[in-house]
């Protein structure tokens, strides 16, 4: 099967190159049969890569340990779902995963894009094929998943225990899907530039794609946090590690784009900025792949260091030079239709939101690259860590949170004083009320207090928007509250889906701020000994050592250490953390021992127990105890955010741009009719 796989890769490579050459040469113009060839080549590449993927999966499922990749990432005693996910668990397989998904998206883009954009499609195919050809070439010339060993091992090495987690089955593909789907908007942007069709047509064509990409990235990042929290055992979920930052960067620029694109649709401004953001987002996703795979910057998450990174560096440079040159040559065509009219307008709020998002992205990029930059410029390597990122990004993040509440309240073009008063009274009161409650409760830490206050303000904004929308529907149609609520969302998914996303974001902020109050303590306990921790919510937790037990499981030998928990003197069950030594089917140890954290998650706080080891074979155990406030809300915030994203992009009946305008116009008129001024 490896021969077939390798052959399929070559076929995919040659067809993709051929497709890109015809597409970019422009010969298809005026020659419909060539345009059809370009489209069919995109499908053919997808077909070849499906064959290659099936070949790899067959090797994995049949335990063909003669294939280096299969031997390196699976073993006979590995649970079946990890064998399936081993497809993307390693460097080489994940390249194939990337290529096959990219070609799937490229085919869907050809298939689903309406006829009116037909003249863009060959260029789109050209870009996606060139990117696909690049990924396949990395496999062909750098790291083939079909490489065979000179001998056949009796068993494979198995999967790293830290990757043996449900989160790790879903997290990488989600992140990859996010990264990969960015290629489609990028391809449309390049196609628009090449064809000089720089009206808003291409923007409409990519709206769904950017949302898909943003949604996958969001889910991928949140799952990554969850995985880090339950597997890595250092007690948190975000460490500003280069690889984490690499996934955050395109998310930031993509989020900026999703906002600024509305200004282009409604007002015809920011054309250059939007193209720059899309190109930048694509380059950052390639940059992220480069960071993850090259080992240039030390990270705990990296794949093995390899020369594959340099393929990506070269690709990154070429793509950046070509895209920005193209953007430069089309610069004069991208004049804005109108100028900014007032600082008190939604446009201005969005512009500041964009600047902040890009500013945050820049600071994260700067901090990530700082060791390299400082070494190159000053000759000595200086690193910055979480203190740097928190110092810079907490104030910027708070400003951004404030804008999340302000943006939806300000009218387009120019807001009147009356409009501002009417819009801001409730949300500002909500924020002020939150502040009073916090101060009364004795919370004095500056940043958390600001975060919770602003969160109250944003919540006030969203609730006011929903309340007014529902009230208007009730007056107009006499609907009950739940019906009005659902219809409101259904009739303007983009707007109300967006508000739901904002709720997710504010939950994230609150949860992140909660971690400022975490409590941590290390202790060595003999059976019967105990430690006490006081939680930020005022509870006293007592952890009493019970003992350590040992047993064997499917592919591991486990030492489990257990403590008895009491809350304010009342028994609250047991908490167990494990030390696992994974073994292969011959009971030989594979990998270093790993820790399975004991977690009890609650709405207020998580108990987080790390068993670091037993003292000299006795039942005396070394522990770290954490009380982590509000962590559950991170996962819940991620859920709300993803739900909002899905509402925003839900197909069928989703109004097109033109219909949105109409509908909103009608809605405004109705509001006026109901005795209310309208501001949208």
């Amino acid at each position, binding site marked *: 099967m490896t021969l077939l796989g390798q052959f399929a890769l070559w076929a995919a490579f040659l067809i993709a190159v051929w497709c890109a050459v015809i597409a970019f040469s422009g010969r298809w113009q005026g020659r419909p049969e060539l345009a059809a060839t370009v489209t069919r080549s995109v499908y053919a590449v997808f077909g070849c890569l499906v064959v290659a993927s099936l070949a790899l999966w067959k090797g994995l499922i049949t335990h063909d340990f003669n294939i280096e990749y299969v031997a390196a990432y699976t073993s006979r005693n590995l649970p079946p779902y990890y064998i399936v996910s081993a497809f993307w668990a390693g460097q080489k397989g994940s390249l194939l995963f990337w290529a096959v998904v990219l070609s799937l998206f490229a085919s869907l883009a050809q298939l689903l894009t309406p006829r009116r954009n037909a003249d863009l499609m060959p260029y789109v195919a050209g870009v996606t094929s060139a990117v696909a050809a690049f990924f396949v070439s990395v496999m062909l010339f750098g790291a083939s998943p079909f490489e065979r060993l000179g001998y056949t091992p009796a068993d494979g090495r198995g999967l790293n225990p830290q990757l043996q987690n449900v989160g790790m089955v879903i997290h990488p593909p989600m992140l990859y899907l996010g990264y990969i789907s960015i290629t489609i908007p990028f391809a449309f942007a390049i196609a628009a530039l090449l064809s000089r069709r720089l009206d808003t047509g291409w923007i409409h064509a990519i709206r769904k794609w950017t949302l898909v990409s943003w949604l996958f990235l969001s889910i991928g990042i949140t799952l990554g946090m969850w995985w880090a929290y339950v597997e890595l*055992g250092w007690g948190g979920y975000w460490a500003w590690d280069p690889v984490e930052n690499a996934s955050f960067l395109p998310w930031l620029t993509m989020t900026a784009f999703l906002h600024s694109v509305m200004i282009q649709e409604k007002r015809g401004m920011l054309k250059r900025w939007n193209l720059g953001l899309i190109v930048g987002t694509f380059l950052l996703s390639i940059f992220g792949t480069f960071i993850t795979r090259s080992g240039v910057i030390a990270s705990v998450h990296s794949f093995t260091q390899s020369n594959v990174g340099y393929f990506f560096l070269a690709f990154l440079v070429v793509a950046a030079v070509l895209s920005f040159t193209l953007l430069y040559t089309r610069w004069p065509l991208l004049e804005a239709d109108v100028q900014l009219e007032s600082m008190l307008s939604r446009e201005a709020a969005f512009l500041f939101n964009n600047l902040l998002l890009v500013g945050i992205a820049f600071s994260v990029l700067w901090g990530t690259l700082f060791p390299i930059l400082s070494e190159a410029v000053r000759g000595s*390597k200086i690193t910055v860590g979480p203190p*740097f990122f928190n110092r810079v990004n907490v104030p910027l993040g708070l400003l951004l949170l404030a804008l999340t509440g302000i943006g939806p309240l300000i009218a387009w073009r120019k807001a009147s004083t009356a409009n501002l008063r009417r819009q801001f009274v409730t949300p500002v009161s909500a924020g002020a009320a939150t502040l009073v409650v916090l101060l009364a409760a004795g919370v004095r830490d500056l940043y958390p207090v600001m975060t919770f206050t602003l969160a109250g303000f944003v919540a006030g904004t969203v609730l006011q928007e929903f309340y007014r929308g529902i009230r208007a529907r009730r007056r107009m149609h006499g609907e009950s509250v739940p019906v009005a609520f659902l219809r409101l969302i259904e009739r303007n998914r983009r707007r109300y889906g967006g508000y739901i996303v904002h709720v997710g974001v504010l939950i994230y902020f609150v949860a992140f701020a909660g971690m400022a109050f975490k409590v941590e303590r*290390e202790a060595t306990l003999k059976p019967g000994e105990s430690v006490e921790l006081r939680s930020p919510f005022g509870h006293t937790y007592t952890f009493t050592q019970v003992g350590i037990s040992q047993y064997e499981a499917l592919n591991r030998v486990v030492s489990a250490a257990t403590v008895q928990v009491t809350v304010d003197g009342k028994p609250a069950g047991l908490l167990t953390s494990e030390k696992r030594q994974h073994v292969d089917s011959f009971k030989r140890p594979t990998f270093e021992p790993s820790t399975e954290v004991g977690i009890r998650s609650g709405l207020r706080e998580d108990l987080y127990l790390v068993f670091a080891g037993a003292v000299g074979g006795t039942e005396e155990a070394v522990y770290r105890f954490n009380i982590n406030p509000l962590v559950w809300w991170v996962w819940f915030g991620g859920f709300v955010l993803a739900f909002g994203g899905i509402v925003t992009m839900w197909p069928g009946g989703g109004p097109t741009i033109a219909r949105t305008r109409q509908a909103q116009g009608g809605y405004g008129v109705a509001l006026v009719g109901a005795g209310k001024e309208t501001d949208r």
Partner: protein
Amino acid sequence: MKAGHKFLLGAALIVGSVGFLIAEGVKETGVYFLTPAELAAKTASDPTFVENVGFKVGARVVPGSVRRDDASRTIDFKVSDGVKTYPVTYHGLVPDTFTDANDIEVVVEGRLGRDGVIRATDVLAKCGSRYEAVPKA
């Protein structure tokens, strides 16, 4: 003042604060990342470096040098880049990847004491082969 100008002013304010926060953040939180040989050179040229300046050292753990005292959660080991070797003492929990075997890479954050021992405040096991299995003996 026109809206465009006002916006530019606001934009300059944001860009300026981002720049300021970055510059100040680097100054306040940046630490040297040194090899043991560079650390030796640094302390030779600048004696005030000892005890006063925090840094990170990236090096390999000298196999067989690790002494653990589980009960007091103290760990002593030596790090080396083949040129210079420094003893390290650390109070706290080390990650699972920190082992005595197969020549692991670590990043030690801390300060150098007058006795030539690095007092670590944090130990990260970098382990270049994080997601690969240990080679079979």
